[in-house]
């Protein structure tokens, strides 16, 4: 670590030799799109000509309607050009393997051990096809079956399905099971309300509404905890279920969670636990022990599999005995000698994605759990909570920042902070602080839905980061806050040493302008 500041722009000259902040300057390549780099005829791999003419020799059973009339539009490049392109792009990024990635609270950005990549990319996994005969995929079915059993034990639930492709898909599967359960009992017309809390992940409310339920949201009580009195006012004969995240996305653990579950049960409803924030409670407390009927995990958060840039992640639903018949199909069954996929489940809510789960991620999660064991999982939770509370102490020493709700109390694995005071004092907003942090080689991101806490910042250090990492991160925030008070302009115009200066957020939020594929880019941006 060096202490001298980097002199790149006039704003940098004012930073001064403060704490031992790392020198960082991001690459900038003006890199064109692959399609723009394309040269007609250029190839990465030259496929040998067939020794015998194939015309007419290979039967083509594709219906005419599915046949191309013209070759596909693909960029034409050599391997080296492709490699160089992606290396350059990676240098213009702040990836999880590059920076101290604690700034994406609610995402549990932990380190994904590279050995797990080797397992997932092993040809025995990578070359499987979902339509292969069951007898030829016994190994991977065994991994899935064992992983289900482990997650059942971690949650205390009776049965687990690994089919969902992400957390929200798992929540949706759970809501679909709740609906099927009440439909079977003839109570669905009467029970049309789902209760959640404002700091439960918004996917809970969204999935309930998508499944046709009315949504009731509880706000925190005067102490900043989920409001038990509000729950009592909300439950009744219309209650189908409680969908609740715990700890909530503020890092606050609901101390009366058992009473919440009991209150809903007494009204005849089901209790469904969003355990996507399980990283701070693994091996310490379990959904079933608090009386929950259903729960879900995000394997791409708690169990270290990559987030996959919005997909595919991997989700897991756990249910109690009474709900097993409704699990998504197929299930993986083991009769003592062989594994098989059971698709003959009349009560099932059906498929929540094609085939069975995101297998490479299931392999990674299995490897991760196997490498840690039960005691290791508990240690993960303990270190994650310790890291978080250590960072919280350091962050709260910074001028202008607070941790609203349940003030003065500790958090579990993440904290939703507020820069409201700093914004009031300096006019600098939270988003600008996150961007200025990029000049020091890290960042934080706007994962604070719903926007209830003013000027939010959500940090979740997980177990992956060392004390030195956390000290460095806190020192960066302290430095940016100091700048906000001393030289607000330097922060407002940040980043100064990054590839991209400002992204026009509104273009990312508007379906008319967002473009995540080349085709969409051509249509929406180039007008082609």
């Amino acid at each position, binding site marked *: 670590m060096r202490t001298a500041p980097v002199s790149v722009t006039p704003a940098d000259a004012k930073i001064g030799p403060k704490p031992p902040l790392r020198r960082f300057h991001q690459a900038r390549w003006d890199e064109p799109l692959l399609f723009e780099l394309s040269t007609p005829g250029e190839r990465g791999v030259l496929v040998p000509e067939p020794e015998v003419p194939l015309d007419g020799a290979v039967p083509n059973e594709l219906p005419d309607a599915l046949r191309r009339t013209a070759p596909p539009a693909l960029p034409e490049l050599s391997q080296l050009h492709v490699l160089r392109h992606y290396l350059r792009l990676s240098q213009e990024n702040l990836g999880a393997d590059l920076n101290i990635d604690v700034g994406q609270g609610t995402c549990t950005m932990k380190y994904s051990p590279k050995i797990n990549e080797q397992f997932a990319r092993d040809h025995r996994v990578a070359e499987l096809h979902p339509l292969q005969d069951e007898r030829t995929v016994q190994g991977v079915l065994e991994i899935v079956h064992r992983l289900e059993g482990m997650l059942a034990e971690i949650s205390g639930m009776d049965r687990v399905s690994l089919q969902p492709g992400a957390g929200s898909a798992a929540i949706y599967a759970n809501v679909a099971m709740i609906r099927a359960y009440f439909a079977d009992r003839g109570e669905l017309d009467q029970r049309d309300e789902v209760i959640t809390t404002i700091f439960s992940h918004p996917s809970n409310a969204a999935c309930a509404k998508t499944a046709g*339920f*009315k949504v009731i*949201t*509880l706000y925190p009580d005067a102490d*900043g905890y989920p409001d038990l*009195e509000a729950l009592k*006012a*909300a439950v009744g004969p219309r209650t189908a279920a409680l969908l609740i995240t715990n700890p909530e996305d503020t890092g606050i653990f609901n101390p009366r969670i058992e009473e919440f579950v009991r209150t809903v049960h007494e009204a005849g409803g089901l209790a469904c636990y969003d355990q996507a924030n399980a990283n701070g409670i693994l091996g310490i407390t379990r959904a079933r022990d608090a009386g929950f009927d259903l729960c879900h995990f995000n394997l791409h958060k708690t169990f270290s599999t990559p987030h996959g840039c919005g997909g595919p992640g991997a989700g897991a639903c756990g249910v109690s005995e009474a709900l097993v018949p409704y699990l998504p199909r197929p299930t993986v069954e083991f009769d003592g000698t062989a594994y098989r996929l059971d698709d003959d489940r009349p009560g099932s809510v059906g498929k929540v994605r094609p085939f069975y789960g995101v297998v490479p991620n299931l392999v990674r999660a299995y490897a991760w759990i196997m490498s840690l064991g039960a005691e290791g999982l508990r240690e993960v939770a303990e270190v994650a909570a310790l890291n978080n509370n250590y960072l919280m102490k350091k962050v709260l020493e910074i001028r202008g920042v607070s941790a609203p709700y349940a003030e003065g109390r500790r958090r579990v694995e993440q904290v939703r902070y507020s820069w409201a005071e700093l914004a009031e004092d300096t006019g600098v907003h939270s988003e600008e602080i996150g961007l200025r942090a990029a000049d020091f080689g890290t960042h934080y991101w706007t994962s604070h839905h*719903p926007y*209830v806490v003013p000027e939010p910042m959500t940090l979740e250090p997980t177990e992956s980061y060392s004390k030195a990492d956390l000290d460095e991160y806190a020192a960066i925030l302290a430095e940016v806050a100091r700048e906000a008070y001393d030289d607000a302009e330097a922060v407002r115009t940040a980043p100064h040493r990054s590839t991209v200066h400002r992204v026009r957020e509104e273009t990312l939020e508007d379906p008319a302008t967002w473009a995540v594929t080349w085709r969409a880019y051509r249509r929406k941006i180039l007008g082609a």
Partner: protein
Amino acid sequence: MVNPVAGLGGRAGLKGSDGAAVQARARALGARPRASERAALALAELRARLGGVPPVLTAAGPMGADAAGAAGAAFEVRYEPGDPTAPADTRAAARALAPLVDLLLFAGGDGTARDVLDAVGASVPVLGVPTGVKMHSAVFGVSPRAAGEAAAAMASGGVPLRDAEVMDLDEESVRQGRVSARLYGHLRVPDVPVRIQQRKTGSSAPSPGSVEGIAAELAARVPPSDLLVLGPGSTTRAVAAALGADVPVMGVNALRGGTAVATDLPAEPLAALARSGPAWVAVTPIGGQGFLLGRGNQQISPETLRAAGRDRLLVVATEAKLAALGGRPLLVDTGDDELDRELAGHVRVITGRSRTAVYPVR
């Protein structure tokens, strides 16, 4: 010190009580001055908490002596107002009392607060007993009793003071459909959180998406043949627009089946209308401050609320508006203690189509 005419215009739907003409019209519409009564309520609370009222210096007759007498307090008159009283009397009385007291307790609204500020500035701690129509300033107790409670806390010692905003409603933005208030200055008030109301934030025009959801939910709940009374506010106005009616932002308006049947209703005709058949009342809290009833919508009287019934009182707010309350409860001060008690607890707030929140009310 009591501004005897404060609040007179509110029950008559007049958005303010300034000027002799407005006051005469309010009286003609059946309004009755209640400022003295509310000031006495604050003193009664003060006595209950302290086991007695500390020595009271006040102005004569309706400007304070009546209230002190009604509360059974021993008082001395230090100022004689004219008849009828005028804003100049408020300023003169404040100047006469300020050097002699530890706390200047005044009953009135935003206009009274501005007069007090003009007269005595930050030279003495003050506290407002809310009796006016517009109370966007942060110098008032959330109710007369809360003001009495805060005054008692101050008399017992150890309560710090803080600067609190005195606001002036921006008439221009009211005409444009945005209720927002302008900062006029600061007074020193005892810092007793929750008991003192928060400054109203200039709630910007609500995003249409969620308001349309709220409107759709109201349309689904209220039968087209029933009366729908909409309280003032930009949320309720946008809801009215989504239901097909164009109504003024500040008044209380009544709709039936998506058409306005009466706009800008005063308390009495409104209560009569509400009694004439099944009626629903939809109100929205004041942004940032949380008042649901009793501030800016006094035309919706306890009589109207009782005629509609608790089940037909619909509270509407966007989630952003609830979020902006920062965890503070919704507040009610209908002027009817029993009704306030019935409304306290938790209320279902309609935040969109098939979406509600359960929110505390105090």
